[in-house]
């Protein structure tokens, strides 16, 4: 945690204060946990109170919700989506399936631990997590952004080879991605 508390210029602190209040969540239901998103997004639990709203395209989204299990086919699309998203970007893992395979632990088609493929900011326990738990995790995320600690996305650039190798092992072959991650890494001076 400490290396994340790098010296932040005053502009970064202001930027963090402003950006934490207007986060865009990518509207992409990757797994079964997505059924709890409509009550969270709409009037019943209304996450818009915290400035979070669903966004349709990865290009303008900040939060990528992995709602539960990921079949290998979806994992390919999730990796592409994640790489399209603009940094800083935050991945939130829903439920047991993203941690250790959940109830599909012996399935041939689903990945077992999310953090081997993309860096994950926080995990929520539950199968599936309730809307209240999701909103609680959003508040945690906002607080972390405010403290400048939500830097897991840098991890993707720092040891990209680790992620790349796991992805190619699971996809049994390379997948062509649009972004040149190594070049982006230089851009962010990581």
């Amino acid at each position: 945690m400490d290396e994340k508390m790098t010296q932040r210029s005053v502009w970064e602190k202001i930027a963090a204060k402003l950006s934490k209040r207007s986060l865009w969540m990518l509207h992409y239901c990757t797994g079964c946990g997505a059924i709890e998103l409509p009550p969270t997004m709409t009037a019943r639990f209304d996450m818009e109170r915290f400035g979070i709203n669903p966004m349709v395209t990865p290009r303008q989204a900040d939060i990528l919700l992995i709602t539960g299990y990921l079949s290998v086919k979806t994992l390919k699309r999730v990796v592409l989506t994640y790489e399209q998203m603009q940094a800083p970007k935050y991945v939130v893992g829903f439920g047991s399936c993203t941690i250790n395979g959940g109830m599909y632990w012996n399935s041939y088609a689903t990945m077992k631990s999310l953090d081997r493929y993309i860096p994950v900011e926080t995990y929520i326990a539950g199968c599936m997590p309730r809307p209240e738990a999701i909103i609680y995790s959003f508040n945690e995320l906002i607080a972390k952004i405010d403290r400048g600690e939500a830097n897991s996305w840098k991890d993707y650039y720092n040891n990209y080879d680790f992620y790349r190798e796991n992805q190619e092992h699971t996809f049994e072959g390379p997948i062509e991605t649009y972004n040149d991650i190594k070049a982006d890494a230089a851009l962010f001076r990581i």
Partner: protein
Amino acid sequence: MSKIDEVRDYELFIGPNHPGISGNFSFKMKLQGDKILSAKTDAGYLHRGFEKLMEERLFIQNIAIVCRICVPDPDPNENNYARAIEEIAGIEVPERAKWIRTLVLELSRLASYLFGIGGHVATTGLYAFSNWTIADRDRIMELFEELTGGRVYHIYQLPGGVRRDFPDGFERRVLEVMDYIESRLGDYDDLAINNALFIKRATGIGVITKEQAIKWGVTGPNLRACGVAADVRKDDPYEVYDKVDFEIPTRTEGDAYARTIVRRKEIEQSISIVRQIIDKIPAGPVWNKIPNPLKWKVPAGDAYVRTESSKGEYAYYMVSDGGRNPYRVHVRGASTTHGVHVLENLLAGSRIEDASQIMFSLDACPPEVDR
């Protein structure tokens, strides 16, 4: 034809991440301008291999996994699984458990219809309506939480009955929620169902004739919207559907609006069924105890069990070879026809702006297709 307005075919990939598609699903469309020449569905994004996982688990352990197959309407799965075992093993279910199961099925149908109609109207841009229906659906979620302990996944019906009886004061709260939803129906009609814009937007979209419906294997509300009064609850009654009376609303146009109207009227039927259940439910045990689940063997045999889910005919074909694990469970989701070939036939010839509305009006649920 001058060079400019020469129209060429082109291919368009929609999904799997697309707000206009319900769930994780994608299309490969061939278009000419904005007219769809042909569409090919592409599923498998939510495939977990349920049928394989079920073969490696004990009979009792599967009650936790079956309700995860179709998320908006999980209870037909649990009911199918429990009834398939009861039919093979010849287990008697206590009368009260049957009534409770029917109540749970109807509440799940209500929640799924609210979700479905909300989604369909939202594709035409009327978001306020889906906010209403999702918020009202949550009242039913709270009822489920009280009865079964889980909001979405109930894991409540098991072979031989249900796991727990009503908590006290539960009947009163069910009637309160039913009254509340009934009082909301008027607002729903004003805002969307009778809204001229929505009617104009939904009529004539994704028309299925009666012959096509039968030929393509359309079932459930979509079939009733084409004028065929076929409902598994009436034709092949199970649990206590033969002891409660309800009508089967039908329409003849077979378009998106007809499907919405059929679902809208069935909400009223479901509310009346729930009320009948609450006042006619007999007292008694709720579970005909099965032997020690770690050593329970279901005798060899097979069964084809069907329920009427909010999406259509939902059936399980289970084979047991007399062992501790089911030998084979084939899940016939309702969307295996609606979500794939019926959708492809409807999309061919329609316009790109109606594509997502057609999908939502059929209430196709991708996890049922992938299992």
